[in-house]
């Protein structure tokens, strides 16, 4: 019991202590190493949560079946990104895009962001969760604007304003949930504690709960990047440092989606409340179709994959909107797979953009010839993200499509249409990026391949064989989600 509380505390304490230290330490090698070490420590603390007994849920912190795998995923991608970031940032220092002062700031912010995301996952209090999401938003805004170019500031400002409005709406929703809970649970701390809320949710005022959910869906949905609230996402991905794009796509979107899922469970526990399904299905389909069309007009490689993130978030929200054990299962699997694949792709893209000196798709050609390792990694990544077998995303997309055909054949038509559209766009871009006459700088890349290989290996393994305990866990959580 104490060991367990300690492990939860470590997951939060390591990043925050590391942030303080990194904010003052000079020197690139030392700080990048420390950043990796701190991320590894957090990952180990998170992994230990899997084996030791879980702590009793307190007023503020909670470890349960829903969040535990997300914490592990979050810290894992946080760790691999810190490894990638070390070699990426070295190059940025060489080219002078980052100064040592900004580098300190960057590393400190990286750890604060990890703290915010971990806190959002482990919090048992809807108010605390909101604060944690706000922390994560603020730090990512600062990191998106770190290059201080015109475009980066534009992107950071847009993200700032839209993200702030999003979290403001989410707070209003949180207050409404409290208002709904107060007559039943009574005033004070208890009425914001997740475990208490869920046990009494059946007796809440359904009308208030409905309105609250709409605010929460819009608010946190802005941060998930659901169309039409996605406008910040492509800019933030394209203009910030690539490690941040990887973390944004791979982790931050998941954090916001996790918040939505929490409240969806709350709504599902109340028999008189509206079903969140149709709302989520509509938003998911809109995002999917919109992003699929937008993929065709991208000329910037990071922007291309940012739109692909919107597309995948759309698919996931659609799956959870459909509900039921199978679709929920597929949605959860898709969240994990997308997280791993997309951050892996961004690792490759980051090195590619650095070695070619450009993010324009038209100026990057024939990568498999000039940089075989990077080029083929990108090929694997895009094949995975486009949903081809035998990689993990194929399985989750297949499950989503087949369960939709079984229950709502009419909805399956736009879904499949969107998937095919996105598939076409991605393959089209991939052929020009990876094959053909090489164009641009052919100097060898000084890249760290390990993080992306690790990610793609995991995605491939999951596509071929999903371990039994993981399947059991997914099924269990899928049932919880209703």
């Amino acid at each position: 019991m104490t060991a367990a509380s300690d492990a939860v505390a470590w997951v939060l304490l390591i990043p925050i202590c590391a942030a303080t230290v990194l904010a003052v330490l000079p020197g690139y090698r030392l700080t990048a190493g420390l950043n990796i070490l701190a991320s590894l420590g957090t990952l180990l603390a998170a992994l230990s949560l899997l084996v030791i007994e879980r702590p009793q849920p307190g007023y503020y912190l909670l470890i349960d079946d829903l969040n535990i795998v997300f914490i592990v995923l979050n810290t894992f991608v946080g760790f691999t990104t810190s490894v990638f970031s070390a070699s990426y940032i070295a190059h940025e220092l060489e080219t002078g895009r980052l100064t040592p002062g900004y580098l300190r700031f960057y590393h400190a912010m990286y750890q604060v962001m990890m703290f915010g995301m971990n806190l959002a996952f482990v919090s048992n209090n809807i108010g605390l969760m909101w604060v944690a999401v706000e922390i994560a938003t603020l730090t990512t805004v600062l990191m998106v604007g770190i290059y201080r170019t015109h475009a980066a500031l534009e992107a950071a400002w847009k993200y700032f304003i839209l993200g702030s409005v999003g979290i403001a709406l989410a707070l209003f929703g949180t207050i409404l949930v409290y208002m709904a809970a107060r007559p039943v649970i009574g005033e004070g701390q208890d009425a914001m504690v997740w475990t208490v809320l869920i046990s009494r949710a059946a007796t809440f005022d359904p009308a208030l709960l409905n309105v609250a959910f709409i605010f929460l869906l819009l608010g946190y949905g802005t941060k998930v990047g659901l169309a039409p609230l996605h406008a910040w996402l492509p800019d933030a991905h394209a203009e910030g440092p690539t490690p941040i794009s990887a973390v944004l796509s791979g982790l931050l979107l998941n954090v916001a989606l996790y918040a939505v899922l929490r409240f969806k469970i709350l709504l599902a526990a109340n028999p008189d409340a509206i079903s969140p399904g149709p709302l989520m299905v509509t938003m998911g389909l809109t995002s999917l179709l919109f992003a699929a069309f937008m993929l065709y007009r991208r000329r910037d490689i990071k922007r291309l994959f940012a739109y692909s993130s919107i597309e995948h978030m759309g698919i996931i929200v659609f799956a959870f909107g459909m509900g039921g054990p199978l679709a929920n299962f597929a949605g959860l699997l898709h969240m994990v797979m997308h997280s791993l694949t997309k951050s892996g792709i961004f690792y490759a893209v980051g090195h590619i953009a650095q070695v070619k000196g450009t993010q324009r798709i038209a100026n990057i050609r024939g990568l498999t010839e000039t940089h075989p390792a990077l080029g083929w990694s990108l090929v694997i990544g895009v094949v995975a993200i486009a949903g081809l077998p035998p990689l993990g995303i194929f399985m989750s997309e297949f499950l989503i499509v087949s369960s939709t055909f079984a229950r709502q054949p009419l909805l399956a038509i736009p879904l499949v249409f969107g998937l095919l559209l996105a598939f076409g766009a991605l393959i089209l871009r991939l052929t020009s990026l990876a094959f053909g006459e090489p164009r641009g700088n052919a100097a060898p890349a000084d890249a760290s391949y390990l993080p992306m290989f690790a990610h793609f290996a995991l995605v491939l393994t999951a596509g071929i064989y999903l371990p039994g305990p993981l399947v059991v866990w997914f099924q269990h959580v899928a049932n919880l989600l209703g």
Partner: protein
Amino acid sequence: MHNLAFDIAHLLAGGLVLISFMMLYQDRLYALLNIFALHAVVLALSVAWQAFVQNAPHLYVTAMIALVFKAIIIPVALHRIVKQLGIHRDIETAVGIGLTMLAGMGLVALSMVLMLRVTGAADPLAREDLAFALSVVLLGLLVMVTRRNAVSQVVGFMSLENGLVLAATGAKGMPLVVEISVAFSILIAFIVIGVFLFRIRERFDTVDVGALDEFRGERR
């Protein structure tokens, strides 16, 4: 006594909505900042009154934050920024004032209808507070979308946030209100620093779509 308590809370919350409306038609930055300071003062009064009525002393902290931070420090800082950036000229409103006011009335009507309908079970004080709070939030959003200037967008956001504080204090016994208002103050401080450091004025000088395409790196 209870009726008086209710009336005063009602008056202050209604005052906030009214001041939000006043923001909609300000076309000078200095005037907008002054109105915002007034907004924050009324919010501080309203929160203090809630603290007194609910017998919740921690809310006085929130009231003090609203008074010192949002009614004094931020407007003064923004005043200086506006002066330094030399943008104390007219605000380019994206939509005409008449239309904006009409939209504002529509939003207030919407929030009244929505909140009063769904909160039938709650006590009347919290109910009205919530309806007013949603109005202030929506009007803040309206200010944000009708302005192109970064400073007035910040003001819109802050008035939106005042609405949230009003809602949070109106929800009787809600925990973490002080913490949340502190978190929001930090957020706002960041925004204000951001406006200043990033010299966002420059980027609002052009509303040319071509320039936007260039930012996005999508021009052929």
